[in-house]
């Protein structure tokens, strides 16, 4: 009799555990972390000098390693790897052509923000810059867009950084504008033609306009096609080894 009661008790507990496991797995499905993005990319630039640039190829982003890779075929076949604030240029034979320091933070790239589901506020309210900006004003425009003005609250940066304005439609980032401290518009970006792939909301067209002090402007329009999320395969590209930069030989040390 006692054994039967114990067995019944154990079954009851097992049922509860199974239920909890089910609920947890259900929640985990919805909180899925995306880790890779691949797309065909075409970048058009119109420079203030009147010159144009066209860059076409594929872009790969690996979130765990914060690595951004461009496999380009136009203007020439080459690979560009951006990792840890360094940009590496490789030729079609994967030989290092050049490397340079950059201040691009892949954590704030459109790829990382989209995979993390933080593109809606440009990641301004989280991560390393959490606490730098604070919402100053929220307005609703006639067309339904929500325009949020963010001001710098970090004391050390108040004299360096200006406000940021962003417009959202249906909780998606539509446009963002960066200002200097005297409220002059420095640049703005527009995010259009959103697509939902496996739950990742990604804009297929991004247009950036940077304003120069002399009234001219540089325009860059990036178009993404064939966007793939968390695809398997092509690991050799996503995990492309970081090229080793050969340092100049030092002089012979005296013996």
């Amino acid at each position, binding site marked *: 009799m006692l054994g039967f009661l114990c067995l019944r008790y154990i079954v009851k507990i097992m049922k509860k555990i199974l239920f909890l496991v089910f609920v947890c797995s259900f929640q985990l499905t919805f909180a899925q972390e995306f880790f890779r993005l691949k797309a065909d990319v075409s*970048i058009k630039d*119109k420079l203030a000098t009147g010159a*144009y640039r066209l860059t*076409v190829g594929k872009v790969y982003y690996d979130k765990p390693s914060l690595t951004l890779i461009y496999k380009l075929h136009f203007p020439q076949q080459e690979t560009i790897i951006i990792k840890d604030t360094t940009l590496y240029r490789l030729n079609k034979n994967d030989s290092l052509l050049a490397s340079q320091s950059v201040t691009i933070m892949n954590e704030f790239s459109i790829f990382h923000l989209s995979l993390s589901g933080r593109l809606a506020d440009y990641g301004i309210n989280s991560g390393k810059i959490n606490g730098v900006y604070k919402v100053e004003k929220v307005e609703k425009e006639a067309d339904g*867009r929500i325009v949020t003005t963010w001001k710098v609250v970090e004391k050390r940066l108040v004299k360096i950084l200006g406000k940021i304005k962003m417009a959202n439609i249906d909780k998606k980032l539509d446009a963002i504008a960066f200002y200097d401290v005297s409220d002059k518009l*420095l640049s703005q970006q527009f995010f259009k033609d959103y697509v939902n792939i496996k739950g990742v909301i990604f804009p297929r067209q991004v247009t950036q306009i940077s304003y120069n002090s002399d*009234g001219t402007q540089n325009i860059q329009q990036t178009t993404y096609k064939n966007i793939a999320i968390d695809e398997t395969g092509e690991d050799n590209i996503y995990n492309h080894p970081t090229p080793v930069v050969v340092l100049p030989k030092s002089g012979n040390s005296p013996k």
Partner: protein
Amino acid sequence: MKRKLSIIFATAISFFFVACQKKQYAFVQKGTVETYAQAPKAKAQVIAEVTPAAVEATPVATSEEVVATTLANPAESLTASNDVTTPAQVQALKYDEKSINAEFEKLNKLEEYVNANESTTIEDVQNTELTKDLKLDSNVTSTVAAGDLPLNIPAFWWGCVLGLVGVLVVYIVTDQDKDQTKKALYGCLVWVGVWLLWWIFVVLIGGGAFWF
């Protein structure tokens, strides 16, 4: 060694300028230069109040006009100017699809062709109908590293706001990119010009009181 010396020299000059500015600011704080201190403050407030409405009401200069100006005298695009009104005239967060498309009209044919023919490189299309009226720049690094400057602030403003320190920042960060450094230098020159004008103005208005 020579490079290091020039960097040290530039930094020293920057510190000197900053020190001078601080001294000047102290005088302004003391009220020694009353006339100057109050005027710009009041003006700034007026601008801050008027700006949102003004931005909405100001007719936007079409991008074609801007392009026409640029193409008429490309050299002008590299010339520094004190006229910094244009960014304020642009409507923020308003996407003018027509004008943006018009900007890339010439490039679209080439883009279509390149997308359709994946193995195409710039050598294949040079001196063809596709690139006939196009001044093509093949600096890919600048493209993928667009907005690469710290805090997404253009080179000119780094020079203009931080002077020689800003130029140095741009020079180091862009890995000695001549174009960007040049822009920062122009910004720096504008800053120096404004700074000198300010000093002359202060000396004229404040007179000897400023110096003692």
